[in-house]
């Protein structure tokens, strides 16, 4: 079979892939190919028709498709090569990519690969919600796809589990389309999505949000007829005796996104169990030389503006990799503890500036996030408010590093 050589292959034509392509091209790398499995570029943004995208980047409040179009226009203008309706089946650690399309099996040999495949959603089955298994249970993204792309209405009386942004967005969407969204239940004692969405998606429409509640049973043998909801304690254990029945024909689950790394694994990329995305260094290079990752496939983002930034940040590194055949080793590990869930990147070299993206694992007020090395503080930021739903970014001047010892990131409140 014919093997086509490419300097850079980008797997996934969503916001991360598009931004990476454009930035790479501007840096002089022009032998790029974006591989997209859908029949248009744009990724998940195609179905995110609500606004709120581009506030930092474009100083405008755009819908998802509009945000994507800004980058698609650039790709077209620069004549960056892309192929749609093509699904990558495997990536080897030698950067050989095999994909299927109606025209046959296509194989590329890349010098560098950028993984930008995005996420999938956590399912009912993965959560193990007990009960019957009727139709009427949809993840929020499925509901969004049905309603926004497939012109298909999925139900009338809706309960939502999970106060993630997508769930709240769908609460509003379905209400505007005439559905009766009865309530949103969240197992944690705080919401998982942005406060602005609680305001404009739930409060605006009188949809109650119940924290510390979860669904303990699903009823209906053919179509959903109702759910049982229970309260949970501070350890997230069900409090017996608090069961309440809610009638509904639709249950929307907004209970977490999982980076879609099956292809990454096939390439031998090592994943971080905290992020479920690749372990990367400050170059966004994974454990496999020449394989880079950015966007939701690396760690779940809340704002697409930062996805684009992250993808652009790796352009220099990819260019350097192509030039030198390798990149400087990054031996300084970044450890997290306590309320810090994870950082990306997980390794740095100490030879150049880097930006740490991190999340806290519970809401904090008036706290200090400190980065220390060998006991002494390198950098710290003071935050009035920090919530798990919002990624925090801390730029670090490498000159402040005192050695090649590990860095520790923790919260000092």
């Amino acid at each position, binding site marked *: *079979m014919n093997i086509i050589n490419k300097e850079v292959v980008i797997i996934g034509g969503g916001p991360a892939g598009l931004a990476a392509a454009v930035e790479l091209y501007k840096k002089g790398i022009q032998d790029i190919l974006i591989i997209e*499995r859908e029949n248009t570029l744009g990724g998940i943004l195609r179905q995110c028709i609500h606004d709120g995208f581009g506030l930092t980047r474009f100083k405008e409040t755009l819908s998802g498709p509009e945000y994507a179009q800004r980058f698609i226009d650039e790709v077209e203008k620069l004549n960056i090569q892309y192929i749609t*309706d093509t*699904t990558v*089946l495997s990536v080897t650690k030698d950067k050989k990519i*095999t994909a*299927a*399309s*109606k*025209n*046959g*099996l296509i194989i590329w040999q890349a010098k560098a690969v950028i993984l930008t495949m995005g996420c*999938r*959603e956590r*399912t*009912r*089955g*993965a*959560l*193990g919600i*007990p*009960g*019957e*298994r*009727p*139709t*009427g249970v949809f*993840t929020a*993204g*499925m509901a969004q*796809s*049905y*309603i926004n*792309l*497939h*012109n*298909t*209405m*999925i*139900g*009338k009386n809706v309960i939502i589990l999970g106060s993630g942004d997508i769930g709240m967005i769908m609460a509003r969407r379905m209400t505007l*389309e005439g559905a009766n969204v009865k309530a949103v239940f969240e197992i944690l004692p705080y919401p998982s999505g942005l406060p602005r969405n609680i305001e404009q998606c739930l409060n605006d429409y009188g949809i109650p949000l119940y924290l510390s509640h979860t669904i*303990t*049973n*699903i*009823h209906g*043998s*053919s*179509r959903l007829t109702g759910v049982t909801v229970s309260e949970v304690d501070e350890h997230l254990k069900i409090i017996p005796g608090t069961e309440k029945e809610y009638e509904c024909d639709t249950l929307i689950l907004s209970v977490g996104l999982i980076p879609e790394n*099956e292809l990454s694994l096939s390439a031998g990329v090592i994943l971080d169990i905290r992020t479920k995305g690749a372990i990367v260094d400050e170059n966004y290079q994974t454990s496999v030389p020449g394989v880079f990752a950015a966007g939701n496939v690396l760690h779940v983002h809340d704002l697409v503006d930062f996805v684009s930034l992250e993808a652009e940040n790796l352009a220099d590194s990819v260019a350097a990799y192509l030039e030198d055949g390798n990149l400087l080793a990054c031996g300084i590990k970044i450890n997290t503890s306590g309320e810090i869930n994870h950082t990306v990147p997980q390794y740095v070299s100490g030879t150049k500036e880097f930006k740490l993206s991190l999340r806290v694992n519970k809401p904090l007020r008036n706290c200090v996030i400190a980065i220390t090395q060998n006991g002494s503080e390198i950098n710290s930021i003071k935050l009035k408010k920090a919530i798990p739903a919002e990624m925090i970014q801390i730029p670090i001047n490498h000159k402040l590093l005192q050695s090649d010892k590990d860095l520790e990131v923790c919260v000092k409140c």
Partner: protein
Amino acid sequence: MKQIYDVLIIGAGVVGSAVAREMARYKLKIGVLEKNHDVCFETSGRNSGVIHGGFAYEIGTLKAECCVEGNLEFDQVAKELDVPFKRTGKVLVGNTDADYKSLQNTIAIGKINGSVGLEILDKEHLHELVPTVIGEFAMFSPTSGIVEPFHYTIALAENAKMNGVDFYLNHEVVGIHREEDGTYTITTTQGNFSTRWVVNCAGLGCVKISDMLGIPGYHIGGTKGNYIILDKKLGPLLPMPVYPVPSSTYMGIHVTPTIEGNVIIGPDADRVDSFTDYSVAQENMDFLAESASTLWPQIHKSDYIRNYCGIQPTWLDGNGVIKDFIIEAREEAPHTINLVCIESPGLTSALPIARRAVRLLSERETLQPNKNFNPNRKGMVRFSEQSDEEKVRLIAENPDYGEVICRCETVTKAEIMQAVHNLLGVDTIVGIKYRTRSMMGRCQGGYCQMRVAEIIQEELGKKVTDVLYARTGSNMFTGKVRE
């Protein structure tokens, strides 16, 4: 005027479909009445898919006889019906002296039943076979194997259909009346049927139908088994089914690999009275994981794909001992063949049971062989299983093989299309799921369900509000967003 069937089979589970296929070897006008929207929707499709070795049944029972017969011939059967089958072997793992004695007893019984090659493995040899198991010793059954139960049932049904059998899905039998001329009029939810012979393969409904046939007196309960399906990445850690040493009433919580590479934990066994409550309870899931973990400590909630349950008909005698299959042709109900309480090992025993049903028929009526009977049935070519060269050839022949619809399981549009146009006319989402594996992966249809629903509407001319998930009343959509 409706035609008079020679044989109407009630129930298109694995047994009903097997009976249909075996009877199609003769010149008979055969029909199958199935109350659900697809074959193998109940007990036949909700088990761990094990082709049993035959050592777990009382000597001299039909269960033992049929199981061993079915097991030994299964390579041939799988080849004829183009159904993936792996004779993986199985281990029954023990730790105590009592376990050891029990296994020795099992081997003795197994030998008499005809189960071949049973032997005790010491700790070292056990761990050579299954490095990930916890146990001191085990009985190894080399003839045990795994198959996808719905693939098998669908294959049997399709082979029967290819050979002239009519399948009536969504036809629930509500009454049976013996006419003066000796024929039977069967009333279903979608009209009446006329037949000379009736075969009761109704599974959970076997007593209901038996009563209708004029053979009262059977009482069955249900045994519900819950299962958890684990991610395919666990597949390589479990090369064969691993069971703890069984007790006298049920098999213990096992872990079983599937042909596709997933791992199934379960079943447990709860006595139930309802034949329609397919709910899985939290306590059951917790117990499955906890119990199976003592045998195979690879179980983590983060690897859960899904859970499900199945109900088997169960018949206990006065001493609480599980009874044998009933395969009978009773004088008081002429021209009927009554199959009662076909529980485990029903999957393994399906064709042997079917042949015994045919024998009961042939003992009462001369049967002419059907010279055109073709025992071979070709399944769908699965893109994901092909070599790169084959994939290229497939796509060149049919470009729809190049369009991946289900990303998790790499199922292409060509397969979805073939499934939508399946031989039995099944048009539910779950029907497509069983036939292609789409929607069975990690994302559980998050990526592909929308497309499959669209294809069903386009190809079958269905209105959006008529797309069914699985059962009657499982309409998935309320309408268009804009029209």
